Each structure stands twice: as C-alpha cells, then as structure tokens.
C-alpha cells in the first residue's frame, strides 16, 4: 500500500480501457471524476479528480467578519452543518477566551448527535442504493425525516442549521421537546435494530459487502483516514473520547468498533453509532441543566486578540478541523478547513485497485464522502 500512487501512471494497454466515472454519475454524492483503468472488470489503476464544486471558501472567509462566517460554515457540508458550526464556534471561543454556558454545551451535544444520526442514516441509505438496494434507501430517508424534524424543532431549519453561537447557541429548546424527542428516538431505535438485523442476515447483501474493500488498521492509519472507516478496522479513535470536548467526558458512551475493516463493517459501525448517539441524547435530555443558553452580550463585531487556534471535532465522517489565524482585526487572517471527507476521498483510489467495477460503487459509498466538503 505504501507505494501505491493515486494517479494513473501510464496510458491503457490494448487489453485495457479507461473508464471515466463522472463528473456526473449516479453513484456519486456530488461531482467528482473517478478515472479507472480497467482490464475486463478488474481495476488496475484509479485516479480521483476533484474540484468541480470548489467554492474557494478559505479565500471567501478571509474577506468576511467572524459573524458572517458562521452561516457559511454550514455550507461546507450540508449533512454535517451542525458539527461545522460547532467546530468553528469552539475555535472562536478559544480565541476570544470565553466559555459556553452549561446549557449551551448540552444543547450543542444534543444537536451534534442528532446531526450525526441523520448523516449516518443518509450515508447508509446512499450506500445501500449503490449496491442496488433501493428499498433500504427509502427506509433510511423515511427514518431520517423524524430526526430532521427534531433538528428543525430546535434550530428552525432542516439542513443548514446555523445553530451554534460564540459562547452559546441561537435558541433554547421548544416546550415539550423532551417527550417528542424520546418518542421519535424510541421508534428510531427499534427501526434501526430491525434494519441492522435485515442487513446482517441478507445473504445477497453479505455476498456483496463481506471482504470487499478491506482496510487493515495499519493501512487505514497510513492512509490518514478517520471516523467510521477507521473505527471499522478496530482502532478506537474517536475525538469525543480522545479529546473530550463540550460535555462528552460527563456522558457514558462506547466507541463503536468493528474488526474486519471491510465495507460491511463500515456500514455496521454507522448503524451501531446511531444507536449509541440515541443513548447519548437520552442522557443529555435527562441531565440538561437549566440556565442561560447564550452569553448575555453577543457583540456583532468580534475582534479576537492576535493568535491562532486549531480546533477539531468528531464529525459524522471523522476528524473535522479548523485552523484560524487572527491578526486582531474583525476578519480572520487565514482560515483553513481540514475536512474529514478530504482525507477519506484521498484514500479511495488505493482501495479501489484490484477490485471489480461493481465494487467501486460499494466502496466509494461506504467511505461516505461528501464532495461539497472535499472541494470546499
């Protein structure tokens, strides 16, 4: 694996053809170009070309005030918008030297976990449709609907939540939220368990996924992936546990791992993480302290002292980091976004070499990449 390059090195021989998957292709969550050199159905070399929806966010952020950046962080990846808000606000809180209120910490954990659930549900759904199992996709989207509604009840929007603030959150919980959430999550728990059972017992599905796209722990570390693809190899690396932020060290949860590192394990990790997130949310709703949910004074113009911060968080897809350099003005001097999907996307071509064309869809979708975040 060490010497596997990520590009196609030579033109195809007469027995090989160059297959372009993309930039528009049904398997993809967004536009990217996956060039495959194939011989028969076997992939000899693969190259991923990205940048089709490059938005130049890092440049744009240098020209916006800190408050203006906040809603834009949603747009890095619409499935993880809450995590992106949160990682930005945590970075800013470090720069500004303020601490979020207790209730805000719990609210952020709550929304982050809801966000993780809906992202995983859609990720599994996209994945199952890529192995030709449309039914599960529609089930997953149906289940996701309830979670999105829960998020909407707190944040006021369904996709781009824009919920976290420097030192707090935007809104408090609506009345009667706990009962509503527990009801929805209780149903979801049952459904996810039954889907897990269905996916673990379907022989055709097992044939398609067991032993496909295997990453070992050392390979995964070498490729630099994090999140569910890494945990599926047996590495207990979860920033919620490694570097507990917000109130995660007060909460009881397990880091879900699987040992095989194949496509099946990655999906299994996501399914079990949904259950674990539900468990976290139940604790959060029980332990939610009363008190203010935001700082008393929230200035519109924020001028942090010169300095820099690298804040990171466990995104649904792995390690989301932001590196913010302040020069004392109201705009960041440099804003670097280190997305988890970027790392997993880079690890995709070496995984594909030697597999079949039909497995491309399964492997690519099991990494749960988000093109919007890869390109930024």
């Amino acid at each position, binding site marked *: 694996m060490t010497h596997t390059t990520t590009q196609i090195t030579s033109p195809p021989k007469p027995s090989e053809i160059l297959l372009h998957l993309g930039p528009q292709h049904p398997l993809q969550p967004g536009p990217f170009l996956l060039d495959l050199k194939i011989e028969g159905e076997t992939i000899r070399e693969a190259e991923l070309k990205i*940048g089709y929806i490059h938005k130049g966010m890092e440049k744009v952020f240098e020209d916006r005030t800190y408050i203006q950046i906040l809603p834009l962080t949603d747009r890095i990846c619409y499935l993880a918008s809450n995590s992106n808000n949160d990682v930005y606000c945590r970075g800013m809180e470090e720069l500004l030297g303020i601490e979020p209120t207790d209730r805000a910490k719990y609210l952020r954990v709550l929304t982050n976990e809801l966000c993780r659930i809906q992202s995983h549900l859609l990720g599994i759904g996209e994945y199952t449709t890529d192995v030709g199992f449309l039914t599960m996709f529609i089930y997953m989207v149906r289940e996701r609907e309830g979670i999105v509604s829960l998020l909407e009840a707190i944040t006021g929007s369904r996709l781009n939540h824009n919920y976290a603030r420097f030192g707090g959150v935007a809104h408090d919980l609506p009345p009667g939220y706990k009962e509503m959430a527990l009801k929805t999550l209780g149903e979801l728990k049952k459904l996810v368990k039954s889907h897990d059972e269905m996916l673990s017992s379907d022989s055709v599905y097992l044939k398609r996924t067991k032993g496909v796209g295997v990453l070992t722990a050392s390979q995964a570390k070498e490729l630099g992936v994090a999140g569910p693809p890494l945990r599926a190899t047996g590495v207990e690396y979860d920033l919620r546990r490694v570097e507990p932020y917000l109130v995660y060290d007060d909460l009881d949860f397990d880091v879900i791992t699987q040992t095989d590192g194949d496509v099946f394990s990655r999906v299994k990790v996501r399914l079990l993480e949904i259950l674990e997130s539900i468990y976290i949310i139940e604790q959060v709703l029980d332990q939610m302290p009363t008190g203010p949910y935001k700082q008393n004074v929230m200035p519109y113009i924020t001028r942090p002292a010169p300095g820099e911060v690298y804040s*990171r968080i466990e995104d649904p897809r792995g390690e989301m980091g932001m590196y913010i*350099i302040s020069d004392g003005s109201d705009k960041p001097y440099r804003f670097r976004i280190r997305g988890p999907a970027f790392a997993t996307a*880079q690890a995709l071509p070496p995984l594909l070499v030697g597999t079949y064309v039909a497995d491309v869809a399964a492997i690519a979708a099991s990494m749960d990449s988000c093109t919007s975040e890869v390109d930024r």
Partner: protein
Amino acid sequence: MVDENADNEMVDGTRDIIEPPKIDRTIMVALSETFKDGVFDVDVPLPNRAVARIDPGRVKPIMQFLLDNGFDHLSCISGVDHPPDKMEVVYHVTSYSGPLVIALKASIPRDDPKIDSLCDIYWNANWYERETYELFGIIFNDCPYLKVLLLPEDMEGEWPLRKDYAGYPNPT
C-alpha cells in the same frame, strides 16, 4: 529466584516493545533536544496543543522523528502568506492514540517558496501538498504529482490564496 528474575526481565523487555510511545508534551522537549538548531520557539498554549517553529531545511528528519515517536497522523498542511517577504507552511501532526496536536511552522522566503515533500513519510501528505501548491505556489520538492487539485488547470500559476491575488479572470 533466578527464574523469576529472568521472567521479569522478559516481561519488561516485551512491554517496552509493545507499549506505544507516550503521546504528550514531553515530545516537545525531546524534539528540541534532538534538533537543537532545527526546532525553536516551542510553546504549549493548551494542554492538547503544541506549537513550534522549525527549520524548513530539516522538515523531513523532524517529521520522521515524530512518526517514529508515535505521531502517526498528519492532520493537515496549511500554507500561510505573510507578505512581503515570507510564507509559512504549517504542519498539524497528531496521533491516533492521543489528543496532542503539534503545529510545526516552517518559514520560507516568499520569492522562492520551496520545501521538501513529506510524501515519503506520511502517505496522505500528497493531496495537502498539492492543495497548498496550487493555492500558494509553494513548491514541494520531490512531491510525486505536483499538479493542481481543486482549481481548474488554467488557474495554475495564479496562487489565489496569496494576499496580493488580484482576482480572476483579471490577473493583470
């Protein structure tokens, strides 16, 4: 007695091999001791964060040292432009077994921005280096495939994240 001692020694010996290197800020002391003139301005602003400046010419041995000491995850490579005379490459190195993130900054001259590639040491440095190259024009020596990654190919040479970038499509 003799046998027990032998057993203990063996256990100790194996434990030394199995036990992972400690992922904490002592690495910064070791780093500055090993590379006396290569690492300077060491700072630990937060319990899980460490910052240091490094000599750009010795980035490869420093990274190799970190990798050997358990820092097996290159989190990010960022470029920072400091006109008029210098640029910085910031490496965020961390570990899969601990929370410490080390930010290593290498200052390079702005008119000749060149630094060694880390692709031999960290496999995933490739895309980060390509991205830094296309956005800042920093050339990574020996990077196996230094081409534009995110930008369209005709924007190679624009270096849009430099502070003096005038805008596209009006490069004049």
